[in-house]
């Protein structure tokens, strides 16, 4: 059996994805970037997909079977 890492990969990858999404939104709100729907919608879909994929591949969090 493969030993589980000392961290929760699902939380880690989800966190990185959410940070990137939050940074994009922050830059848009600060008028540094101009994110139109054609970029924003794929970015959001990719973020949600990335989070689901990370949590799915990582399995249940530590402490849960």
């Amino acid at each position, binding site marked *: 059996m493969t030993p589980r890492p*000392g*961290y*929760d*990969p*699902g*939380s*880690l990858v*989800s*966190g*990185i*994805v*959410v*940070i*990137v*999404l*939050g*940074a994009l*939104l*922050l830059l*848009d*709100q*600060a008028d540094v970037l101009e*994110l*139109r*729907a*054609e970029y*924003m*919608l794929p*970015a*959001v879909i990719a*973020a*949600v997909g990335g*989070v689901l994929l990370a*949590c799915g591949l990582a399995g249940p*969090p*530590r*402490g849960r079977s």
Partner: protein
Amino acid sequence: MTDTQPTMPQPEEPPRRLTRSTTDSLIGGVAGGIGRHLNVDPLAIRITFVILTFAGGLGIIAYLLCLIFVPTDDPSAPPLKWGLARTLGAGLLAVAALAILIPDWAWGPAVPLLAVAGAIVYLLIRMVRDDGGSHAGRVAARIAIGIVLLALAVGGFVGAAAGSALGGGIVVAGLVTACGVGLVGGAFRGGARWLIAPALLLALPLAAVAATDLDVRGTWGERTFRPATVAELAGGYEMGLGSMRVDLRELDFPAGRTELPLEIGMGEIQVLVPRNLCVTTDADVGAGAVNIGDGEQGGIDLDVTDERRVAPGVANLHLIADVGVGAVHVGDRLFEWDGPGRWRDDGFDAMETGTSRLACLGAA
């Protein structure tokens, strides 16, 4: 007869010292330690910390002070871990950002309401936890917690959308980023996947607002503007939410180009123009519809430009419309928009393409 027996001198208990708990710990064991010290349920302490966080960040500040100055009950435990430091750093940044951006939040009316909500949540969780309660009671408590969580989710979603549309997008984006930092920090402490839900609940409405450039700051309601002179058009008109009707039918437009900037966050813009006036349009609509006489165009991220050729010496009204979510319509009579592709026809008469085109050529 009573005989008094000499009592053995009891060894004096050492004074109980406040320590952070290493066995009952979610972040740093502060609430667990305080609860143990005061003989109070640590859950109540945790809810109190959360409520006080909405009082100018007092909860986080108090927690941090306890974390720094209250020792742990395990002398061999390391003083602080990197994951914890990251989580706390993100929390501090979030509090600092909120304190700067929303200075009036400290001790606002939300705190008493949160205190009541916190007490209800505490009682509900206790009901679920207690083994002695009836099965029906526990089921009822779980349903109530579900309703509370659903209300929080809907409220968070709507609040994030409204806050973003009202100019608070930076705060919402900061909270999303803070959730992400919390997720990364929590990954090294057993995982914090519960943060995914609030992060997406905040990010999705903000993304929708950002994608449509929705900004409902400004006047709300139904307004009709009837400028007396063409010179009044230079400043344009702006509304946050509602219906803007600009009636220009009585104006006598001079030869040459007259620009009219119009902006609305959410709602419809109706421009009434004199028949046979050459009208050109540059409309930017986040989501909705545009009808400038060439048929209605609808969708997301519309950028409708109608820069037809205008003959020299012809009076030309050039509309520059900026709509977050809604519709723009140009016509010479009153109309009502009933939804995508549906215009109520009581008196409606849109600008006829041919008429406007001929007018621009000076032939109408």
